């Protein structure tokens, strides 16, 4: 694979485009200058830091360090998705399991199938993509689950009253939530190459790779992510719905806002 070197000066030059964004904000009084500044600063600091971390891991060639970095990503992802899915009681537990399983199963499979070598230079970026997409899918699916539960309280209670277990009463909602967690990536995969070029492909093309190589790698990543996202959303909603119920198959009290 070819490699490309990018100088600090070239990076600094791209700040002109940020200046353009700030100018737009100032001119139209969008009041986004502070946010833009913060975004630039954070992206610089976070990416520089992770760059050094990844460099160190590549140099050490230690799979333990890779596992440690992925664990940190799972932790941050769980925290982020948990905050977004606050309407689901006890969401962090299912999210943690969803992200861990998605990362472990997908990376394990691509290695077992011989798609990638078990080396840091593959595991770190692919693991990061898997965890990031799993995080988004879990948060979307769990948010939808909360909406579904709140919108179907009477129906859920009616089913419980007929002797349905929490699982049976939630089955339809769980399936709809799973779908909403999976659909964005499916749609994105359907339109890829038509509307947008995915980031990996852009990066490889810029770095001088053959377009056919860039396409092959991009396909692998897209298809791997489909499996990862399905698994993450499935685990998140299959465990997440329990947060709305007591062990005695009752809806938790604060949800009930019926007559009296």
């Amino acid at each position, binding site marked *: 694979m070819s490699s490309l070197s990018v100088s600090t000066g070239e990076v600094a030059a791209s700040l002109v485009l940020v200046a353009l964004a700030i100018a737009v904000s100032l001119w139209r009084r969008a009041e986004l200058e502070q946010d833009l500044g913060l975004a630039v600063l954070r992206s610089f600091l976070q990416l520089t830091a992770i760059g050094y971390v990844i460099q160190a891991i590549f140099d050490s060639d230690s799979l333990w360090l890779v596992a440690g970095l992925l664990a940190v990503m799972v932790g941050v992802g769980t925290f982020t998705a948990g905050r977004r899915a606050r309407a689901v009681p006890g969401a962090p537990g299912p999210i943690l399991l969803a992200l861990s399983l998605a990362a472990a199963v997908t990376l394990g499979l691509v290695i077992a199938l011989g798609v990638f070598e078990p080396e840091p230079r593959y595991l770190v970026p692919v693991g990061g993509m898997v965890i990031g997409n799993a995080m988004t899918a879990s948060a979307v699916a769990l948010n939808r689950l909360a909406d579904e539960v709140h919108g179907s309280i009477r129906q859920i209670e009616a089913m*419980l009253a007929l002797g349905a277990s929490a699982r049976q009463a939630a089955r339809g909602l769980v399936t709809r939530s799973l779908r909403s967690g999976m659909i964005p990536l499916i749609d994105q995969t359907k339109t890829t190459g038509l509307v947008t070029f995915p980031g990996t492909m852009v990066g490889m093309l810029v770095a001088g790779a053959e377009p056919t190589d860039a396409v092959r790698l991009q396909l692998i990543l897209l298809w791997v992510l489909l499996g990862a996202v399905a698994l993450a959303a499935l685990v998140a909603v299959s465990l997440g719905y329990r947060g709305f119920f007591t062990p*005695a198959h009752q809806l938790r009290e604060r949800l009930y806002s019926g007559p009296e």
Partner: protein
Amino acid sequence: MLRGLDLEIGEGTTAILGPSGCGKSTLLRLLNRLADPDEGVVRLRGTDVRELDPLALRRRVGLVPQLPAPVPGTVADNVRYGPGLVGLEVDPLPALALAGLDGSFLDRDASRLSVGEQQRLMLARALGLDPEVLLLDEPTAALDERAKEGVEETLAGLAGISVVLVTHERAQAERLAQRIVELDEGRLAG
């Protein structure tokens, strides 16, 4: 919401009468364990309901909700739903007949019935479980005068089953119940 309530409910129909907001629906929800009291005990034939399997309890103590909430599907699907959860196949016709719906309703989409018909379906669905106790939460509140008379006639004809009827309407309690319990602000009135 409910305080100091000591109540024994026997055979026949018992009406719980009181203004809205007095805790009537809450009381019903305690009886089939859709909710638990903070303090105190609910017993069914002497057994603390918390010692029973909640799902089995709810099949013994059927509930007709205040507003109809059919499951997606046909009228027959709705009556078969509860028994189907435990692997039982029932003929929906007898339960539908008890609730005043004939066989022509079987294959109709439950969500497209009138509110009155849906409420009868809720009754049929609860009866399809062959319960020992039937809980009725303002079963005619959503109905017009004619539909209400029909449902009341059906309720008056139910035999061999303990019924707990929650209502805000004294006349209805007097028409249907052998015993009337009045609730006010979460306590027994009078």
